[in-house]
């Protein structure tokens, strides 16, 4: 019924009424419906309980002692009587001081005021009154602060650091990405030097062809990046994809192609954008280019999948994928190179410019196990060595009598080491090819499986296993240690292949493995020197006597 509801609401709106009658006040009555020990004012206690008390914990309950005359409730135990009983007296206590309060015309003077209960009507006013920093509900104040900061040191903010969102004239450079579901969200800012590739779904339809902002080229290139000087996004290339998936590259790539309807199809819909940002080593963005893939949709299409990518290239360098900056990051491939004849410094073989992470030739690789486990049919499948990941792989080699020793040895060495086994491994993830000292040479060892030396050295020694041991250490500060490769050893183990009688064949396992060993020295604390007391008397301290 509505009356009880409004009455209940009214009750909850005000706090409980304050108790001012001293006869009813009891501070030691803590347990509900139970007698508290030694609490003489507890109404839950019976006479039998009182007879067990030893003393009264609350002997007197009075009002404000500043008042000239006030009511007081006095509780005491009469221990003489048998059984002991509680004595309760209500008296008027008189304050003898001449400065006692005879009367007061200020109601809140002698008691705590009950706080105002928030209601929908007074909530805003209470929020204004009691709002402090923790309850500040104005997000508008934040962008104002950052604007003030950026205007005061305008030059410094436009040098970007790793991970900082790239700012454009109105907001941030957007890289649409899927958030909770696979639908595109345009709120993902691109971070400086953070290479990202995302794929997401966007809902489109032929009817809304010209109105879908996110499917038109203009949406992605009309913002200009704020750097030390404003950088406009240029169109690098346009690839047109037809309905059946065939892609053709367009020649005139400076023409803006907006979505339009042609033959019941909506063409020039953006299916993919690839941003390439060029930066200097001081963190300034100097160039931005976007490559587009445009496609077409027909009447039945309800959504398209868009893919976005952003990559960063330092100016005047060829893009080489780093495996860490500076220390190696677990999971990234080891960077390796070789010193070509006549060159004083190692040179990495570089793959085609902008494709990342497929630099097969500048990596250390090991044999990749295949499903048929036949070494000779492996056809050169290799997998790159990733930092921190111990790997073991292998295959089975079938030796027949017809195989000759020397070609077999060579085949196995090629199998184990691969085509371009490097000579140097980078000690840091970002070692540049010019710094010779940053590269660790690979040490080669040969061991033989047989412990006992055969006197017949002419028997065939075939390599059966390659073990690469990478020793690395933690380098740098204790809170952010960087992994640094110190030593790389490639051990080839050979075994004797006895000449088989014709017709017989033998299967031997071939293994290759990579092991990463942490040889970090334990961190040493560095203590500051003990302070010394520099105590010297002034020159003329004993003046009259010296």
């Amino acid at each position, binding site marked *: 019924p509505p009356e009880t509801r409004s009455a209940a609401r009214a009750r909850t709106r005000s706090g409980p009424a304050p108790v001012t009658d001293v006869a009813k006040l009891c501070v030691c009555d803590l347990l509900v419906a139970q007698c508290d020990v030694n609490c003489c004012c507890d109404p839950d206690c019976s006479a039998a309980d009182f007879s067990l008390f030893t003393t009264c914990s609350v002997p007197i309950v009075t009002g404000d002692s*500043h008042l*000239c005359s006030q009511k007081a409730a006095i509780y005491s135990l009469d221990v003489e009587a048998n059984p002991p009983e509680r004595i309760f007296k209500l008296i008027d206590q008189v304050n003898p*001081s*001449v*400065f*006692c*309060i*005879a*009367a*007061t*015309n*200020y109601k*809140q*003077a002698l008691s705590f005021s009950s706080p105002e209960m928030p209601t929908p009507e007074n909530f805003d006013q209470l929020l204004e009154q009691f709002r402090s920093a923790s309850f500040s509900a104005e997000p508008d104040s934040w962008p104002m602060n950052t604007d003030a900061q950026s205007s005061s040191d305008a030059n410094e903010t436009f040098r970007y650091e790793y991970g900082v969102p790239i700012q454009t004239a109105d907001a941030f450079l957007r890289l649409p990405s899927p958030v909770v579901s696979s639908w595109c969200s345009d709120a993902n800012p691109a971070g400086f030097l953070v290479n990202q590739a995302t794929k997401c779904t966007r809902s489109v339809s032929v009817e809304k062809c010209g109105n879908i902002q996110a499917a038109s080229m203009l949406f992605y290139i009309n913002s200009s990046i704020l750097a030390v000087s404003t950088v406009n996004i240029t169109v690098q290339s346009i690839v047109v994809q037809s309905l059946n998936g065939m892609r053709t590259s367009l020649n005139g790539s400076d023409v803006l192609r907006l979505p339009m309807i042609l033959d019941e199809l909506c063409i020039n819909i953006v299916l993919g954008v690839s941003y390439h940002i060029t930066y200097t080593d001081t963190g300034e963005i100097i160039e931005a280019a976007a490559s587009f893939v445009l496609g077409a949709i027909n009447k039945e299409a309800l959504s398209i999948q868009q893919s976005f990518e952003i990559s960063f290239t330092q100016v005047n360098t060829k893009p080489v994928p780093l495996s860490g900056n500076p220390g190696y990051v677990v999971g990234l491939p080891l960077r390796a190179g070789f010193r070509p004849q006549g060159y004083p410094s190692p040179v990495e073989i570089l793959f085609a410019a902008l494709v990342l992470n497929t630099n097969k030739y500048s990596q250390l690789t090991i044999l990749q196990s295949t499903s048929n486990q036949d070494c000779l049919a492996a056809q050169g499948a290799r997998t790159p060595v990733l930092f921190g990941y111990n790997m073991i792989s292998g295959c089975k080699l079938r030796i027949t009598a017809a195989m000759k020793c020397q070609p077999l040895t060579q085949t196995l060495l090629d199998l184990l080491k691969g085509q371009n086994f490097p000579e140097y491994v980078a000690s840091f993830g970002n070692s540049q090819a010019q710094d010779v000292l940053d590269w660790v040479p690979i040490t080669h060892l040969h061991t033989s499986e047989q412990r006992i030396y055969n006197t017949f050295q002419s028997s065939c020694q075939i390599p059966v296993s390659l073990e690469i041991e990478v020793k690395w250490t933690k380098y740098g500060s204790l809170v952010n240690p960087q992994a640094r490769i110190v030593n790389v050893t490639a051990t080839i183990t050979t075994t004797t292949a006895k000449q088989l009688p014709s017709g017989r064949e033998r299967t031997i396992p071939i293994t290759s493995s990579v092991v990463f060993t942490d040889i970090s020295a334990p961190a040493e604390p560095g203590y500051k020197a003990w302070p010394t007391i520099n105590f010297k008397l002034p020159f003329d301290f004993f003046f009259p006597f010296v």
Partner: protein
Amino acid sequence: NNSYQLSSLPLQLLFYVNGIYYIFYFVATLAMIIYKSQVFSYPDDFLAPDLALLFIMAILEVLRLYLGSMGNLTEEEAPLGLSLVITVGSVILSVYFLVWQTYVLKADVIINAVLLFTYGLESVLKVIAIAAFVS
């Protein structure tokens, strides 16, 4: 034998005593207001009227005593009448400090009661003196 002297001697004595007592009253009330503001919760919008009325009362008192004394000594009824009218204002202010102050201490009650008694006695003597001057 003072048939040719109409000035009232008891009234003049009372004026003199009133002056000295009022100085004490003013200092005591001010000190107690300061004490109350330190010990109790005395917000500014209650403190300001109390202090203002105390200073107004002091000004009125000075005026009242001067006019009354002058009127009595020059045997003029006009200043004495004016002093009587101002006495009404002083009485009202004294009642305020006795009853309607923010905090009324026992000491406040005592000194205000004495002041009111003095005012009452003065008023009676003034009326008698005015009657003597007029006739």
